[in-house]
């Protein structure tokens, strides 16, 4: 049997003395659309960052394809949160997508014709081929998010980690992003998405993990998103109970 695509083993992360994630054990064996769901401050983004070595872990290990990240970094694509960069930066949409090819190019080598063609194709896949020469700040939030997705596509990875790619995004961009992610899954890639919206989670993900600093539950979406599990995850967040009720109702309606 082949090694799991992504495995967290007993991962603990603390910022200073404040623990953010406790003893996360999570194994993803197969290509699928995998949602990481939980309330604000549950450590969802931190989990991705820990997997990518962007925050130090205080304990535990993360492996991709059964090996440490350093052995398979080229096969891992990443979409950070949109708010983490300065959108007034003097680069064009096409330039940003080209950045997905930089790791493959290595030190000091500049992108050539092949990289430019790949970048154009990736932009077309997210429906933005017409704005390649525009400065990135002149796009809408949803378009900016699609640029980040196109950059990840240009990484030509086997595992994709996306941090809130659907937050604050218009309906058309949401649909495009979801279609691209589903196509990646269908072509045998693992797509891990940090997601906060329970209503859409039930419809979009094949499998989910519910996280509230600890792993509450994980497995196929239909068996994990139960009222009991959601209550344990969102415990004490009264304003979310209404949303929770609607989410569960929606899930029951869709087959």
């Amino acid at each position, binding site marked *: 049997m082949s090694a799991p695509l992504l495995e967290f083993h007993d991962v603990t992360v603390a910022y200073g003395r404040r623990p953010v994630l406790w003893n996360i054990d999570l194994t993803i064996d197969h290509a699928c659309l995998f949602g990481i769901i939980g309330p604000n401050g549950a450590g969802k983004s931190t989990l991705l960052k820990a997997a990518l070595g962007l925050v130090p872990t205080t304990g535990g290990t993360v492996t991709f394809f059964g090996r440490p990240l350093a052995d398979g970094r*080229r096969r891992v694509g*990443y979409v950070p949160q949109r708010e983490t960069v300065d959108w007034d930066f*003097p*680069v064009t949409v096409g330039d940003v997508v080209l*950045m997905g090819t*930089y790791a493959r190019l290595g030190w*000091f080598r500049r*992108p050539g014709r092949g990289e430019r063609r790949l970048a154009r194709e990736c932009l077309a896949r997210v429906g933005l081929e017409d704005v390649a020469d525009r*400065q990135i700040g002149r796009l809408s939030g949803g378009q900016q998010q699609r640029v980040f997705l196109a950059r990840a596509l240009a990484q030509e990875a086997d595992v994709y980690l996306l941090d809130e790619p659907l937050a604050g995004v218009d309906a058309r961009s949401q649909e495009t992003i979801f279609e691209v992610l589903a196509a990646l899954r269908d072509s045998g890639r693992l797509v891990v998405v940090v997601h906060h919206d329970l209503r859409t989670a039930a419809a979009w993900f094949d499998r989910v993990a519910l996280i509230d600093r600890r792993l509450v539950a994980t497995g196929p979406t239909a068996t994990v998103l139960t009222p009991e599990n959601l209550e344990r995850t969102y415990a004490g967040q009264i304003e979310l109970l209404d949303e929770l009720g609607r989410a569960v109702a929606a899930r029951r309606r869709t087959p």
Partner: protein
Amino acid sequence: MMSGIPDVVCCVATAPAWLAVPPNTVVVAAGVAAVGVAAGVIGSLAVLRKRALAGDAAAHAALAGVALAFLATGRRDLPVLLGGGLLAALAALGVLVLLRRYTRTRDDAATAIVLSVSFGCGIALVAGLTSRGVPDAAGLEHFLLGHTAALTVADAALLATVSAAAVVVAVVGLKEATLVAFDPGFAAASGWPVAAIDYCLVGLVAAMVIVGLPAAGAVLVTALVVIPPVAARQWTDRVPTMLLLAGLIGLAAAVFGVAASALVPRLATGPLVVLAAATLLAVSLLAAPERGLLPRAWRRRSARRGAA
């Protein structure tokens, strides 16, 4: 007007009067112009990576290094003094890194502390040396506000060489520097050593403020690193073009400063360089076609008229 430099008149008697500058001044101007170009180029990368203030701390710390180098060697050769300045600047940046890592001092506070403390050391050293009447120590004050009139041809060659090397490094590493400046998280996730690239960038900035000391002095040299990039950003949405424009703006400011202080030998160069750069910045902020205040106001007005 040229009476202060009589040897010039005979050698360029046939040239127009405004060309009648000593050849020495031309060479020095070329050296300082190279510094202006390189400061604009390196400064662009530093401003994009939001590391401009580190250069200011390095520049202020350099004064102490200059004074210590003079104290240790008893010589006032530019390479010796700038070498001391560079060591002090790197030491200050090292302290800055340690302060941030091992204490919980915030970035801006840590920078302000390192800047003011190291500058205080420098001022005390220079004042001490000068007031004791150490021969030659008076020249150290020139590193406070810049003074190009006394530079030799060899000095100018040194400044130009360091500047050219810095530009080469920046151009070779432009892809990596741009990636890290735009999205350090993505860069780190895809395997780039972000911290090492940052150290290289800050090291380049330190080198630039050191060779900028004769032109603008410890207090003002940061302007040479910050103002041209900000002005250049107004005119373009591409990093390579921004580097080029910032280099040209830095060149214009540096040449103006050298020329003006050659004509009025007692005048410090730094303020003139800064004023020239600031003038170009003001024009850029007001008039740049896309981002300038005036064209934007004009577009808003015509949009309102169109709507009415």
